[in-house]
């Protein structure tokens, strides 16, 4: 840790990890409800548990991004953070909002717009927190060194805040409602979040492989160009069946089919950097998470997304378990792995010591990723069977669900593996061994600028 104010990142990471634990716990409950539908049906209905599962995911990923920004921006800009106090205030606001929303959900207080169920006061709180955040990091960057990484990261984070504003606009026309809803949901995960992802991965590659900044920058700009070029009009792949004109089927199919390109570029980027890199960084676990991030994002977002993005295919698969398979691996690969990578990288620095519990951390990677891959396969098979029985043969939804029971049991099993992986990860990151002093290992590898 080169700058004292980077310390605030640790608080963000702790809160992120707490919500991560909550998210997967509720995920496990949901997986069990799939096989035992009356489980907790009075106390915690499926829709409420699902809200908490998805909202907690999004909030902890955002907390991770904020933490990552607070960690890497001082280092990139070569200056202390504008105001660590504001950063703490922002975190308090977000945590009050998040816990308020969860408690509200448990008492059935919500606005019922999928993923944006937060009551208005929470949404406004999020906006205020976002403004504080943007003010804080933008001033930090402005007074320090500007790099491609800070530029792209700022663009992505500003984009996150701007597009969230559409959450406040809810027209009564259902088609328009859905159109703007996707401005938040799609343009976040397939647009501006990708910029954040590329920037953080670029930072990790710079630090872990020692490749020249000049090379990393070129990759970063290329990836960002591809992400925006394909992702923005790619929004059209959500406009097939919501009441928008038919030409969206062509726009959506063509552009979203190419959304695989930036994810593929990120795989090539990370692997080429590691191959060409001439430096051995001691934090092997962070490298594993980084490579896992680009690879699993390519499969989850890229390949599994392409699988059902063309309109004639989506006509049959829309809203089946194929979507669930894609959603799980895409979020896990692109954004969960990304956050766990930066947490794994940053925590030893924040604790001012050499990387620790690496083997355990890497075991957590394989268990979590293996579980998530297995979950993706079972849900994909379930989705294909469901598509055939329900959409081709025309059987009833619930009759089909019964016939998918075997897949749902296997999904529950893979969920258990993921939760175990999460617990091991949390232990590995939060409970460091007693320091083993190895001479010469303490100094951070300095990237060749």
């Amino acid at each position, binding site marked *: 840790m080169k700058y004292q104010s980077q310390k605030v990142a640790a608080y963000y990471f702790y809160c992120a990890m707490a919500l991560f634990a909550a998210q997967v716990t509720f995920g496990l409950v949901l997986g069990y409800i799939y096989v035992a539908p009356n489980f907790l049906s009075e106390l915690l209905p499926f829709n409420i548990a699902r809200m908490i599962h998805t909202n907690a995911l999004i909030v902890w990923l955002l907390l991770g991004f904020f933490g990552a920004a607070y960690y890497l921006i001082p280092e990139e800009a070569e200056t202390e953070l504008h105001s660590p106090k504001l950063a703490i205030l922002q975190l308090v606001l977000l945590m009050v909002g998040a816990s308020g929303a969860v408690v509200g959900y448990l008492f059935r207080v919500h606005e019922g717009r999928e993923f944006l169920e937060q009551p208005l006061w929470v949404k406004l709180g999020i906006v205020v927190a976002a403004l504080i955040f943007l003010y804080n990091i933008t001033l930090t960057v402005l007074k320090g060194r500007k790099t491609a990484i800070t530029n792209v990261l700022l663009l992505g984070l500003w984009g996150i805040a701007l597009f969230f504003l559409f959450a406040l606009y809810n027209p009564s026309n259902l088609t328009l409602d859905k159109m703007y809803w996707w401005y938040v949901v799609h343009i976040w995960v397939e647009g501006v979040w990708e910029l954040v992802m590329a920037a953080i991965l670029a930072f990790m590659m710079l630090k872990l492989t020692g490749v020249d900044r000049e090379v990393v920058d070129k990759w970063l700009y290329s990836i960002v160009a591809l992400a925006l070029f394909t992702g923005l009009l790619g929004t059209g792949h959500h406009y097939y069946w919501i009441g928008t004109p038919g030409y969206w089927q062509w726009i959506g199919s063509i552009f979203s*089919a*190419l959304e695989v390109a930036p994810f593929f570029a990120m795989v090539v980027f990370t692997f080429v950097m590691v191959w060409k890199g001439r430096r051995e960084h001691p934090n092997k676990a962070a490298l594993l998470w980084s490579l896992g991030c680009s690879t699993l994002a390519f499969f989850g977002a890229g390949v599994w997304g392409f699988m059902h993005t063309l309109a004639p295919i989506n006509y049959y698969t829309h809203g089946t378990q194929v979507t669930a398979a894609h959603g799980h691996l895409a979020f896990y690969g692109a954004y969960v792995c990304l956050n766990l990578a930066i947490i794994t990288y940053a925590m030893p620095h924040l604790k001012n010591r050499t990387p620790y519990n690496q083997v355990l951390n890497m075991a957590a990677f394989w268990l979590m990723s293996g579980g998530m891959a297995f979950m993706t396969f079972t849900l994909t098979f379930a989705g294909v069977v469901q598509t055939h029985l329900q959409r081709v043969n025309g059987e009833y939804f619930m009759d089909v669900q019964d016939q998918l029971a075997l897949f749902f049991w296997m999904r529950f099993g893979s969920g258990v593996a993921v939760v175990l992986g999460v617990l091991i990860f949390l232990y590995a990151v939060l409970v460091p061994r007693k320091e083993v002093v190895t001479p010469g290992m303490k100094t951070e590898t300095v990237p060749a600028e």
Partner: protein
Amino acid sequence: MGDGEGACNEAAEISSGWGPLSALPGDAMMWILIISELAVFGAALAGYAVARALDPGLFSASQAHLDPFSGALNTAILLTSGVFAAGAVRQARAGVIRATRRLIGIAFLFGLAFLAVKVGEYAGHLADGYGLETNTFFTLYYLVTGFHAAHVVFGLMILALVAVFASEENVTTGCAFWHMVDLIWVLVFAVFYLS
């Protein structure tokens, strides 16, 4: 970097940074855009081929409403524009700014002529009652030619920009985009008007 002699070539390749794109004229980011554009139009034309194979009758009946003469005229206009753009690059390399700007100006005027013809065509189709949602052929026709026309507009803005900031690098980069706009039109013309 580049201290090891054995890895010297490789190191040189890394430090230039753009890998295979380094050898191309102009800014490498432009080539990433050009490749992306070719992929998008390629995907659209492939989609057209599939849709046409599924309903050949509808496609040939609809295609009969297009005027191949206007299409051919626009092809000639855009290719002529491209010749002047290529001339501008040559002058920029020779360092003759005035001639560079004059040639870009002529290329620009041909670009405007292309848009005029295209707008005339659209007005005719709309007057005859063929709109964006008439059928699959017209949906694709409007989307692909409209998206192309948007690139002509964007290309004209780039030409204007590189005429003002007329360094060799800028002119080469801007004209590379302009040539891509020609290239795509030739394909679009052949697929929509002729086949």
